[in-house]
């Protein structure tokens, strides 16, 4: 197989159906940009949610009579738990102080003894902050004999998690749709290129070119389209992300892998699209 000849014929291919190829590449770029934007939206939404989760405190109120040694032991156990990011001990005195700060009333003047229990405030690792995992964690903690009650903002977490899931599913469906669109775009352009070169293909067949020899330039063409689409999409997203950062949302996260990801998808779908097209229209 003669690489140079294949490449030369591939160039002639591109010239023949040039406009269709340009149109296809532009459309692929748009679709990949949309995928990139979905990805960005997803990552940033997750980031925002993570930060919300990081502020979710689980308050573990201890039984009134627990002694200092037990408390220290429990604290160690909690700190060692991989799901836990931070543990703060709030002694009964501290709790009273906070109460006074928050409500401006001096409890000690009303009742003789401090009625507030000691507690731990626990912040979980965001990776473990899904409603189910939190619930499991809370159930586990509640088992300890030292623990009286465990409280956290259950409703907010459930709410956020539910909508995050809906958004994630919607974005995935949208991305899947775009994958299909890209594949069809490439499929169609290759089909048209094959159509515009059917005379030359017929002659190739006639003089005994192998099927593989006839097909390969079209596969290469499909992948080039995918690559070009990926590069243009990366450029569009570069401008887009800079604009968004400058104007509305300076904290915008841009995952490092994004450009490679778009390029990879471009190549992958380019190959699939041209492969299907070639096998549909160029098989005996």
């Amino acid at each position: 197989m003669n690489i140079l000849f294949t490449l030369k014929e591939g160039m002639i291919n591109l010239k023949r159906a040039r406009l269709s190829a340009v149109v296809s590449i532009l459309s692929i770029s748009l679709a990949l940009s949309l995928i990139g934007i979905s990805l960005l939206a997803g990552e940033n939404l997750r980031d925002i949610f993570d930060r919300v989760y990081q502020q979710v405190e689980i308050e573990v109120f201890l039984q009134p009579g627990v002694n200092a040694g037990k408390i220290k032991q429990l604290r160690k156990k909690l700190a060692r738990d991989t799901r836990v990011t931070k543990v703060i001990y709030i002694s009964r005195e501290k709790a009273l102080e906070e109460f006074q700060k928050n409500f401006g009333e001096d409890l000690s003047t009303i009742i003789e003894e401090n009625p507030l229990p000691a507690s731990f405030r626990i912040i979980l690792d965001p990776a473990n902050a899904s409603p189910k995992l939190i619930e499991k964690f809370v159930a586990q903690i509640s088992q300890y004999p030292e623990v009286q009650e465990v409280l956290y903002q259950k409703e907010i977490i459930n709410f956020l998690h539910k909508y995050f899931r809906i958004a994630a599913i919607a974005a995935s469906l949208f991305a899947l749709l775009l994958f299909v669109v890209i594949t069809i775009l490439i499929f169609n352009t290759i089909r048209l290129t094959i159509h515009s070169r059917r005379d030359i293909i017929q002659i190739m067949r006639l003089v005994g070119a192998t099927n593989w020899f006839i097909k390969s330039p079209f596969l290469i063409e499909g992948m080039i389209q995918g690559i070009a689409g990926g590069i243009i999409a990366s450029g569009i997203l570069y401008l887009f992300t800079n604009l968004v950062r400058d104007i509305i949302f300076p904290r915008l996260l841009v995952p490092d892998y994004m450009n490679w990801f778009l390029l990879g998808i471009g190549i992958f779908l380019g190959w699939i699209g041209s492969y299907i097209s070639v096998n549909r229209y160029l098989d005996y």
Partner: protein
Amino acid sequence: MIEFFNVSVKSKNRLILREINLKIRKGEFVYLIGKTGAGKTTLLRLIYMDLIPTAGNVLVDKFSSSNIRKREIPYLRRKVGVIFQDFKLLPDRNVYENVAFSLRVIGKSRREVKSRVLSVLTQVGLNHKRYHKYHMLSGGEKQRVAIARALINEPFILLADEPTGNLDPEASKDILNLLEKINKSGTAVCMATHNYKLITWAPHRTLLMEDGFIKQEIDPDNLNQILEL
């Protein structure tokens, strides 16, 4: 060399060819004649396996239509040259490139190609016009280019489907002479034609097809009988 055993071709419940039995020997020259729709083109397509029969078996060289694999067909095609009424050349390339194309396409290097192309172009008498553009050629010259391309792999048979259909009588005679010369050097020729005058000029074995089968083999001596049509 080429043998048809009870070959039938069916398309949409209609028999296009029925029970053809035929043998073309090494170095033979065969005419195929018959009305439009008689099945001449279909018979030729069976030989270069552009079509696989629905019944029976076609043997070409060492290939058999009943068990040939798709990916073997290109190698069969390299042993069979084909030319058509409408030349089927690439109009955006010159004479040399058109002929060379068929060698490049089967993976030969640029150097190998050159000497072979020049020798074939000499054979068909077009060496001096090898850099002429397609549109600068007469119909007869275009057909010579097509013949050169068909010859380049030294096929054992040349299939020609109405090769003179677009040519004037003078050019037709030239092409016929060229095919005879090629045939004399050992390549078999099988030619479908409506131009019975060719047969009077160069009498050879002649098969008359009608309605999908070979009605009769016409005796070269009785040729005048068909020309009376």
